[in-house]
């Protein structure tokens, strides 16, 4: 065992234009005999509106339907910021492994835009660490998404986090 790595979490971070392969990413999680908790989060593109734009007069069925999202990124800084977030979360919650994969480009409804996996000794830290990573990604990482609706309209999503 390499004792110099005991307090350093392994944090593979990827930004990719290709579909996220959840199976390969789950199979890439290392076997750690000291970890009892595994948590995973996926952010999936859904067909209803983003968090800030509402249709206050219409009923739910009246909202324009999302066809796809177009994600763009400031790649070097986005990667760097996700690495910093993963390290911050691993230190704060004693995570032993943090994996983040964020996709960019055109992503259709039902497809996964971001996937996070963490390992920790206990379950509370796994949940808290995984949630911290996605919360901070939404807050800090230079990635943007534009909603394209089936009626041809499009708008930038203005996130309220």
């Amino acid at each position, binding site marked *: 065992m390499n004792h110099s790595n005991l307090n350093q979490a392994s944090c593979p971070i990827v930004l990719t234009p290709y579909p996220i392969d959840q199976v390969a990413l789950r199979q890439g999680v290392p076997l750690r005999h000291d970890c009892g908790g595994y948590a995973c989060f996926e952010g999936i593109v859904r067909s209803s509106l983003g968090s800030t734009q509402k249709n206050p007069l219409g009923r739910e069925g009246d909202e324009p339907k999302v066809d796809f999202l177009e994600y*763009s990124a400031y790649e070097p*800084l986005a990667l760097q910021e996700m690495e910093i977030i993963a390290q911050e979360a691993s230190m704060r919650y004693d995570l032993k492994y943090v994996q983040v994969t*964020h996709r960019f480009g055109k992503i259709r409804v039902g497809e996964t835009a*971001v996937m996070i996996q963490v390992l920790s000794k206990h379950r509370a830290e796994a949940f808290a660490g995984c949630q911290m990573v996605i919360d901070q*990604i939404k807050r800090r990482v*230079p990635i*943007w*998404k534009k909603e394209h609706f089936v009626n041809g309209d499009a708008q930038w999503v*203005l*996130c309220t986090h």
Partner: protein
Amino acid sequence: MTNQVEVLYFAMLQESARKTHEVVPLEPGLTASSLYQKLKGAYDFSLEFHQVRVAINDRFAPGDSVLKGGDRVAYIPPVSGG
């Protein structure tokens, strides 16, 4: 060392500028914020300077940073990843 800086545009700023990046001349003492005000006037950016973050050479940087020849400066609109 040149007398120019490269500017990167993303998201709505990229749409307003109709370009992903460009090279602009560097005047002595030019800060990231003063350059933004010029570009905002030229391209009619909808975002005020306090709504964007600044990165210089792919690192976050203060808005009042003085630019140097060869710097790559980016103005980062409110993010919406995840």
